[in-house]
């Protein structure tokens, strides 16, 4: 087809402007900002002073940031293992010969469609509520004492549990599409050979899902590293050590929050870069460890 340069230019220009303005320029500026001393976010480049890795040294000596990293690790590892395992289990169930598959898939994915703020409010104001909450009603019904689910000790885990419940549906759909891509004759052959359902899962399904598992690990890492909303809603007014995550720390450092003495946009940028590096490193490692198999099917 004939190349029409004017058309190409006119059709591409808005998207290119969007990419430059919204992504390329901001990312570069954030990276550069992370090695400068920038007190106020709105100050021009002229007021920046280069200070090497001082911002990074500063955040890694900050107790709040270290706590936020520990909480991130809990969300990433514990939350990740449970979410990915649970969604894989449900995906296997919903691709087996079970009735009402469509309904169950739709219902389990539902939390991903509704406003996460509404969802988190349901957890905080109802399920975990001390006086009239669902869990404490269950606990008293079983004859135990009420639990302070949102007390300092339990809050992080309560938040992770709520986050997992809402996330499973998304990963389930990814696994389902992976499992449905595996030809059924593999399972038929295995059944004829007398392989049990469990054996079939570990010898056929899991190895062939390697690529999908890789994708879900990357997605989960991005979600855990940029975790913000749930933490904000579990500690809405004041940042708390039990639920602080890196992005909360970043927000407080850049825009100010209770307990922040001086704003520091450079340090905030450094937090962003650290999180991005974590995501990239995890991505590279999973790519190396779970090399896409050469199996053809």
């Amino acid at each position, binding site marked *: 087809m004939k190349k029409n340069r004017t058309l*190409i230019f006119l059709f591409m220009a*808005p998207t290119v402007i969007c990419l430059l303005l*919204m992504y390329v320029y901001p990312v570069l500026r954030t990276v550069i900002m992370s090695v400068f001393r920038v007190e106020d976010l709105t100050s021009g480049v002229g007021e920046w002073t280069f200070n090497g890795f001082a911002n990074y040294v500063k955040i890694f000596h900050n107790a709040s940031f270290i706590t936020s990293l520990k909480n991130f690790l809990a969300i990433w590892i514990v939350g990740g293992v449970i979410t990915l395992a649970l969604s894989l289990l449900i995906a296997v169930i*919903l691709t*087996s010969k079970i009735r009402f598959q469509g309904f169950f898939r739709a219902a389990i994915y539902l939390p991903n469609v509704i406003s996460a703020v509404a969802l988190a409010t349901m957890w905080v104001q109802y399920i975990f509520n001390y006086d009239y909450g669902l869990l404490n009603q269950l606990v008293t019904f079983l004859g135990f004492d009420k639990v302070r689910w949102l007390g300092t000790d339990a809050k992080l885990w309560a938040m992770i549990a709520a986050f997992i419940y809402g996330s499973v549906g998304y990963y389930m759909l990814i696994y389902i599409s992976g499992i449905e891509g595996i030809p059924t004759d593999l399972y038929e052959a295995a059944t004829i050979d007398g392989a049990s359902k469990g054996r079939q899962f570990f010898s056929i399904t899991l190895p062939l899902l390697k690529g999908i598992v890789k994708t879900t690990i990357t997605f989960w890492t991005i979600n855990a590293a940029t975790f913000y909303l749930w933490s904000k809603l579990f500690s809405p007014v004041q940042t708390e050590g039990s639920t602080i995550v890196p992005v909360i720390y970043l927000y407080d450092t850049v825009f100010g929050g209770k307990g922040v003495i001086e704003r520091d*946009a450079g340090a905030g940028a450094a937090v962003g870069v650290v999180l991005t590096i974590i995501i990239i490193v995890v991505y590279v490692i999973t790519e190396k460890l779970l090399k896409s198999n050469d199996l053809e099917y």
Partner: protein
Amino acid sequence: MEKTKKRINWKHELKMLPGYLVVIAYVGFLVVVLAWIIGASLSTSREIMTGQVMKFGSGFHWENYVTAWTTQNVSIFFGNSLLYSVVSCAGVLLIAAPAAYVLSRWKFMGSRAIRICLVISMSVPAIMIIMPLYSLAVKWGIRGRILLIVLYIFMRVPYTAIYMLDFFATLSHDYEEAAAIDGCSANRTFWVIMLPLIQPAIITVTIFNFLSTWNEFFMALIFTSGKEMTPVGVGLLQIVNSMKYSGNYGGLFAAVIIVFLPTFLLYLFMSRRIISGVTAGGVKG
């Protein structure tokens, strides 16, 4: 349900019982919670605090919805979110569709770089861009609703362009050739012939853009100044935070239901399309 199952093949269904239990427990939990929230939105704060929610001892308190809608400003938040979602859905199509079409049709200088850039942009975390965007907005004096609309449009351009690119690529070149013979300009051919051909993709991608914009929270929290431009997510957070002073639990749960309803209804009618769209092309929804 149990009976019909038995009539069909109870031996098989019994073997699947553990599977049924897992998914029924998972879904049942959500049903119980939603039922209670709806019940609470129709109860007085006193009934909620004393655990009398599903009894409706004093009747249905629809006035909770009126309070939430008017006194707690949900009407403003709702209107803002609707405006942001509808306008940005349209804006994103106007920007991304032509680019997706051009990228699917021709190779030109930088086309490969733009493609890669689009794919990477989809997974750039918001924290890497908000700080410079904030200072740009201040510097250029862009404020109010228009700022969030522009941000929401730009946020969805990479996903929308990549999603539509695959669909344009499947269209035959015959359409354009026939149109060219009839003397139709390339520009007109795109808007009148090519774009309508990928209507199913447009609908799916627009649903995802709508959901994403309606549920967006982080950008809204940073860039909203003042209640007249606050969307539902941030608005709900404000209602929760003022609860301590107002003590109106019924109104809070009514607000939760109002915020929950639009995307839920959309999902009710479109769940098949949404579910198949989530994994199409392996892109994040």
